[in-house]
């Protein structure tokens, strides 16, 4: 009886993980927090857009502004908010992926069933991504609904396409944090420690990432003519080490057809530039490096988690 005849095991694990997450308290809590904040941000943004609407007839992709514009009293736009809170989503669904199995002593029983060992970690990652997808699709539809209601503007097919690509990018971004959290859940025995490490990295990057980039850029920047420009370029480069920066830049170009670059722009370069809208493919080309880097980060993180898990002994 060869092994190949059995259907693969990871979908069974993924399905269980997905169901567990769906009924878990953390899912309800996260969905509530995200929905509330999302609704607040969009409500404020739509109010802001309405107030300036008379002067700005012909704004390109008006509908998508709902996601990128911030207005009183909510100090952040929805995309900024997702860039900040997305990591929490990944960490919440990944921090106890393997350590939870160890703490409940279910791992030996699980791997003694007719599945390969990597089915466990693959299934858990896919199940986690599945639940993240549900959260994002639900949130986006919710926010879009509020927007249509408040603005009376129905999104065009082009806008819907941009929105879909952005949701995909957001899933990859959260997928990175999910993989990172799973890596800690493999390496660290205690779930609480694993969660703390994940949260520290998240808050550290969110609060001090840009500051650190600026400081290092200032230290390393050469002196002399063109120093300011070199320093700014270096700072941008360093900031792009952080997945948060990468996702923010990708979001800005994907959701706004007028964004033509994410790098440092001099006034000379803008001279006689013709303001025009980019197509989705062109926008994607602008942030292609960011998107590819995010995917690479996710793959590397998951690869490390996979490698560490496969090398571990079943017994704790």
């Amino acid at each position: 009886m060869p092994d190949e005849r059995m259907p693969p095991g990871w979908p069974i694990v993924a399905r269980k993980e997905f169901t567990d997450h769906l009924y878990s308290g953390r899912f309800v809590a996260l969905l509530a927090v995200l929905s509330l904040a999302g609704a607040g941000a969009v409500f404020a943004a739509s109010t802001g857009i309405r107030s300036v609407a008379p002067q700005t007839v012909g704004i390109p992709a008006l509908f998508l502004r709902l996601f990128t514009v911030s207005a009183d009293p909510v100090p952040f736009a929805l995309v900024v908010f997702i860039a900040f809170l997305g990591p929490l989503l990944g960490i919440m669904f990944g921090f106890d992926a393997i350590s939870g199995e160890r703490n409940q002593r279910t791992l030996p029983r699980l791997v003694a069933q007719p599945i390969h060992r990597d089915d466990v970690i693959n299934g858990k990652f896919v199940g986690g991504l599945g639940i993240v997808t549900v959260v994002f699709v639900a949130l986006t539809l919710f926010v879009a609904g509020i927007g249509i209601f408040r603005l009376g503007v129905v999104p065009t097919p082009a806008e819907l396409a941009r929105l879909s690509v952005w949701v995909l990018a957001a899933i990859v971004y959260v997928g990175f944090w999910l993989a990172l959290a799973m890596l800690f859940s493999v390496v660290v025995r205690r779930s609480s420690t694993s969660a703390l490490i994940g949260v520290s990295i998240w808050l550290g990057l969110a609060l001090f990432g840009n500051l650190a980039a600026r400081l290092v850029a200032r230290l390393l920047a050469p002196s002399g003519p063109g120093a300011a420009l070199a320093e700014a370029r270096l700072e941008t480069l360093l900031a792009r080490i952080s997945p948060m920066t990468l996702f923010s830049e990708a979001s800005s170009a994907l959701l706004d057809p007028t964004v033509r670059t994410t790098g440092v722009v001099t006034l000379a370069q803008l001279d006689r530039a013709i303001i025009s809208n980019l197509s989705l493919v062109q926008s994607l080309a602008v942030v292609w490096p960011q998107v590819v880097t995010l995917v690479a980060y996710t793959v590397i993180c998951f690869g490390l988690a996979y490698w560490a898990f496969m090398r571990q002994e079943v017994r704790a």
Partner: protein
Amino acid sequence: MSDEPVISARGLTKRYGDTVAVDGLDLEIGRGEVFGLLGPNGAGKTTTILMLLGLTEPTEGTVRVLGLDPARNPLAIKRRVGYLPDAVGFYEGLTGRENLRYTARLNRMDPDEAEARIDMLVDRVGLADAADRPAGTYSRGMLQRLGIADALVKDPDVLILDEPTAAIDPEGVSEMLDLIRTLATEQGVTQLISSHHLQQVQEVCDRVAIFVSGRIVASGTTHELAVGGAGPERLELRIDGGRDDLVRALEGVPGIDDIRPGRRPGSWEVVVAREHAGDAVRALAAGGVEILELRRASEELDEIYRRYFQEVTTHAG
């Protein structure tokens, strides 16, 4: 095919760095046999089991389970081998039944068939009333019962039980042992039972192996082990009378080594050369000593076990 051993190991060795967990283990278990792997904690029992299941790779040696190599056909083996791990755990948020259902799905069982089997099994292990409560509320003993049901969900040909009687009450132990015996006699399930609790397991095992510091120091039926010992026979007696009666009756019997108070209060122990044990019993009867109880003290498995265990430790020290 049926003559082939269901589980066999040749020169099985597992090293972790400098420490040797299992050292050149040879093992053969036939179809329908109940085999006890007995030894103290840390003897390497669990490591051996993990190697049989292909969950840990042997450093040296070969393993065959149902004629297959766990390193090459792990899924085929795991589909047919039920495993109860040491200190088994379940998903605390799921009910007992949901936990078993997950196992059934992982074994690609037909859902309806699985449901009927789960109903039958929770009833059989006495968890019918608790099956729909979260496993997080179960006591240690209930988890152990659920673990047995879990190992049986796939209707296995082979059952590997790691410390099945740990953490359950005496009544639960005897139910567990009945279940093991029934599975062997009625369904021909081959079973490997690891335990450090000798008295509990000895009565259900066809054969046992005594496993100390990664090596089997003795194996066979409990009777063979007792006879196979090189030392003299120790007869434990309770008689109507005192030591003097014993001494008088046994006078002239060759090979009597010692007559001393037995371990149990009011009993006596006669140490006699193995070939003269029968002579001693006959002499007692002929001498008019009224025997209330007579048994071979050395037949108790824990005695044997203690003897082998001591031998190994004194050799090692």
